[in-house]
């Protein structure tokens, strides 16, 4: 746990009124930076992370000792070139990597918030992270980007702060969480809450941990990040270290073993209550509704130059939903480019070493700088 003590944090003194009505104040926001802010302070890129991401976008994550979640994309000479750009990434509120979340101690009770933590939204996450601009004394960002829930934050950021970024790069996301997305998230939450060790969210205080529920949530979600073709090519019906079926419920198939492994390593780095809160925030995300059913109104005032990217095999945030963003931006007269990257790796594509995708990000960011 010592490593967690070295996490960079700012304490936000400015009160933040959450969408649920509660106001938070003096709360921590954990962040990490890559590259150097130039003298003109015009080279900063704010990267927003996805559901299970954190502020450690690049290099080695000091907590997990694994490469940062976007290390293919962010780094020296990479698509988001930290030799040129100053990359800021912070842990969302509701998260579990140092920012204000359900694992924090509630001063009123002296125990972890658990489910007493206020329900937060994508809007709240973005408003909290906006304080980073003031902290770094940046008047205007060069870009905001992120995939999946990170992309939703990109859209919300430009809607909230139309003149605070020159460019915006939302990737594999949506302006409004679909019924299917909500359904998968609910599956994950129910899995956590069905684990007896969840104890109504008070597991930390009661020294237990709903690892099984959280692992199953991760397994189910992980399937949605891949594609049928990708799964078939990688695993097919291959057996796990055996020549024949076992006629049991062991992990006979490699895909079973893979999912179990993904579930088991996830519980080491993620908090079950954070999973509930962040998935809830995603489900509540409906930028179209925020603007009374007209998404283009969200971008009416902005001069930000957009580029939207989707992936052919992403069935969680499909091209059609990404294109709706493009259409709304066009309707508002905003400047927007779009490309659908060919990939059979599903929604996960934005996290992988995908040359066409990385080239697009690099070209867009560098040609407009």
């Amino acid at each position, binding site marked *: 746990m010592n490593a967690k003590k070295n996490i960079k944090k700012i304490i936000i003194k400015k009160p933040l009124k959450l969408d649920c009505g509660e106001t938070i104040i003096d709360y921590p926001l954990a962040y990490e930076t890559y590259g150097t802010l130039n003298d003109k302070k015009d080279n900063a890129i704010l990267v927003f992370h996805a559901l299970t991401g954190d502020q450690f976008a690049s290099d080695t994550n000091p907590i997990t000792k694994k490469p940062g979640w976007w290390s293919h994309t962010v780094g020296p000479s990479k698509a988001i070139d930290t030799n040129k750009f100053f990359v800021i990434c912070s842990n969302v509120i509701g998260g579990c990597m140092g920012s204000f979340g359900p694992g924090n101690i509630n001063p009123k009770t002296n125990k972890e918030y658990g489910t007493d933590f206020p329900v937060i939204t994508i809007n709240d996450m973005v408003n909290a992270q906006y304080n980073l601009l003031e902290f770094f004394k940046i008047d205007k960002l060069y870009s905001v980007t992120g995939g999946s829930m990170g992309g939703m934050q990109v859209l919300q950021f430009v809607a909230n702060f139309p003149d605070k970024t020159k460019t915006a790069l939302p990737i594999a996301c949506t302006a409004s969480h679909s019924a299917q997305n909500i359904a998968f998230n609910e599956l994950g939450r129910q899995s956590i809450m069905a684990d007896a060790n969840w104890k109504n969210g008070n597991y930390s205080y009661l020294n237990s941990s709903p690892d099984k529920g959280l692992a199953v949530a991760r397994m189910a979600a992980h399937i949605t990040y891949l594609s049928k073709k990708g799964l078939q090519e990688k695993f097919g019906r291959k057996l796990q270290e055996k020549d024949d079926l076992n006629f049991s419920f062991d992990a006979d198939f490699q895909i079973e073993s893979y999912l179990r492994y993904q579930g088991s390593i996830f519980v080491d780095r993620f908090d079950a209550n954070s999973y509930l809160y962040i998935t809830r925030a995603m489900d509540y995300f409906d930028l179209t509704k925020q603007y009374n059913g007209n998404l283009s109104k969200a971008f009416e005032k902005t001069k930000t130059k957009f580029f939207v990217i989707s992936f052919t095999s992403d069935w969680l945030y499909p091209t059609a939903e990404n294109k709706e963003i493009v*259409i709304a931006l066009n*309707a508002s007269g905003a400047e927007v480019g*779009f490309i659908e990257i060919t990939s059979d790796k599903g929604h996960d594509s934005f996290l992988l070493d995908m040359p066409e995708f990385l080239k697009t990000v690099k070209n867009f960011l560098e040609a407009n700088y």
Partner: protein
Amino acid sequence: MKKEFQIISDLIENNTRVLDVGCGDGTLMKYLKDKKNVDTRGLEISKDKVQICISKGLTVIEGNAEKDLKQFPDSSFNYAILSQTLQAFYNPERVIDDLLNVADKAIVTIPNFGFWKVRLDLLVKGTMPVTKNLPDEWYNTPNLHMCTLKDFFNFCSKKKIKLYKSIALHEKKTSEISNFNLNLKNFSSELGIFLIEKKYEN
């Protein structure tokens, strides 16, 4: 830059908003942006060409003119450009309609199927014409709806589309097309470039 693009560029006023439909590698867009301070947007079906445009800093949407023109609000551009692709659409009539909805004026260029070499191919050889401007064989051509300059002229008058300017291009030589020389130009030109606008009834 090819002569056709030079002519198109000359038809476009400075400081305007232009949509280049089928913008390819963005050569024309870049020229208009740099030389005429035009606010350009592109629509392009090829992913590779979209990538080239991105690397030039151009704003391009991957898409198909037959489906994706509708996303732009009415009159959101001063000009829409459609260079030598009208004949490749399933429904050229609807594309022209959409072009004139999203832009006040459209610049449409057409490879002329009435060009004498094209006519000669069919007349003498009895095979589908293959020329410099129409290099594909009948079995692999993307062109579904070939027309002649005269056909497009007639189409505009039938559809009440106002022809602002009609230019014939042959081997880098340009000339104005009019009702008087239409038959001649339809015979002697490889390419027609038309600046059109929707004519309202009242």
